[in-house]
């Protein structure tokens, strides 16, 4: 079965997610504990990945940083999916000028540089994770809205939907039980690809110093910490590798789900 193929990208994703969720149990040290005597230690049994420029244990920071990065990325993606799907289904169902407006505005906004929005929020409310999340949600929902709106318009014309309308099915039931399940496969594919992009955006903005505040561990911020110590590349190698693995598996998963859906439906 082709479905087995999904395990290949799913396994590393779930493994990293599990490890980061278990950070309070698994991490050998407090991620923010300073130890000025043991700076830049090479990997050893005491510190499996070594220590950074303040003597903090890199493995603990990697695990705790993963909680921040993955948690925010998941939250942003879920929020944008909820908002986008709601607006998309609504506009697709209403059709006419509302659907056209959603698709036209997504045409314009999808190439809009979202750093502008991030900068506006940062100027008003200072640099913190909430501003960044809000700015990202405000630019990301449009993708979900576009996908769900397009599919809703196609679904609406199907005979089965017309028949359920004739039988007197309530519009809310129709949307939840007939339209939404039809959107779900495409939506989950978009979700995983968007999750990867969001994660790259979060770590990128944190790298620029627009995201988490310094003592907190985050994968992008860890690369920022390492940029002044290029002779000790181990400070940034692991967190970058983790980002790469998560984004690669999320993208592959999204592609596989779309392929699977296309094979069964077309």
């Amino acid at each position, binding site marked *: 079965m082709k479905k087995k193929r999904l395990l290949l990208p799913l396994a590393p994703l779930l493994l990293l997610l599990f490890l980061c969720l278990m950070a309070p149990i698994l991490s050998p040290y407090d991620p923010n504990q300073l130890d000025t005597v043991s700076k830049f230690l090479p990997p050893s049994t005491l510190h499996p990945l070594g220590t950074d420029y303040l003597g903090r244990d890199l493995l603990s920071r990697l695990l705790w940083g993963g909680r921040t990065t993955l948690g925010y990325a998941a939250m942003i993606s879920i929020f944008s999916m909820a908002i986008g799907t709601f607006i998309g289904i609504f506009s697709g169902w209403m059709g006419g000028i509302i659907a056209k407006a959603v698709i036209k505005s997504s045409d314009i906004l999808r*190439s809009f540089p979202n750093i502008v929005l991030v900068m506006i929020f940062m100027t008003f409310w200072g640099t913190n994770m909430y501003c960044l999340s809000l700015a990202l949600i405000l630019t990301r929902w449009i993708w979900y809205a576009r996908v769900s709106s397009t599919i809703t318009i196609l679904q609406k014309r199907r005979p089965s939907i017309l028949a359920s309308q004739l039988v007197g099915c309530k519009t809310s039931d129709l949307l939840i039980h007939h339209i939404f399940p039809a959107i779900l496969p495409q939506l989950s594919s978009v979700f995983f690809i968007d999750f990867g992009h969001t994660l790259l955006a979060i770590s990128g903005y944190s790298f620029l110093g627009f995201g988490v505040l310094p003592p907190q561990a985050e994968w992008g911020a860890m690369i920022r910490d390492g940029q002044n110590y290029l002779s000790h590349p181990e400070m*940034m190698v692991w967190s970058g590798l983790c980002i*790469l693995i998560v984004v690669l598996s999320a993208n592959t998963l999204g592609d596989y789900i779309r392929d699977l859906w296309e094979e069964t439906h077309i």
Partner: protein
Amino acid sequence: MLRHLLREMFLLIPLLFFVSIVAFFLVRCLPVDGATAYLNSIQVPITQESLSTIRKELGLDEPVFIQYLRWLGQILHGNWGYSYQTKRPVLEELGRGFSYTALLTMATLLWIFVCSSVLGITSALHSNSIWDHCVRFLTSFLSSIPKFWLGFLLIIFFSLKLKLLPVQGVGTWQHLILPSFTLSCSYTAIYTKLLRTQILECSQQPFIFYTHTRGFSKRHIMFHHILPNTLPSLLSSFTIHCGSLFSGSVLVETVFGWPGLGRMCVDAVNARNYPMIQGYILFLCTLFVGINLLSECLCITFSPQYRQEKLQ
């Protein structure tokens, strides 16, 4: 065509207008009042009297709407204020930064063009071979790698270990190689994938089959019949990525110490340099609208289907 472009502009102008309102209020709604800030900067003691005279002088006592119109007039005349950090005109600073960013973008476009056309065409020619699978893995790898991390890895390998290329900064053409390559990676992945699927799709068409029966060489068919047909979809996808190309350059410019627009904006946000932030936002949005219109022109010029669909 002119009418169509005017209609496009009609949709984009409100966006520009909205952004200008946001940019105006960005500086207006700061915790520090404009008159107090001005008095501080010319070192006049702050009293009730001096505040009210300055308010009158700067026009801060007038309705917000009038103030906005006056500010918009200044912007249109090219008076974008002065940077807090360097005390020089914002527009001049932005222009300098833009020239560096444009240079970086040009080099990036060159990388994208060369790499993705080579990879895309070869993998489509030998589809489902080992090379094709390698290219497919490479593209998914390149589209997932964090740009800033890749940049540091390249610096560590090529500049620190092999000592082949300069680490950071600007100057010679060698400074341009690593940043532009780093920036081009994710786009190369996208266009390679797109080019491959487009070529394969086009090869299935009956008219390509006909050129085969007419006895043209494979090379002739590829360059004269298949590739021109892939151009429209590549162009339309390019319009989507132009905006992100400029915001994506922020990361690469920070990594490589490239004094372009992006790094300027990061410095401005960190130093709370409000005139620069305002200028950057306006500049980027104007650029965005300009690029959108330009790409619309290109799509209409190069794609007959698009032209027919849009102009009717």
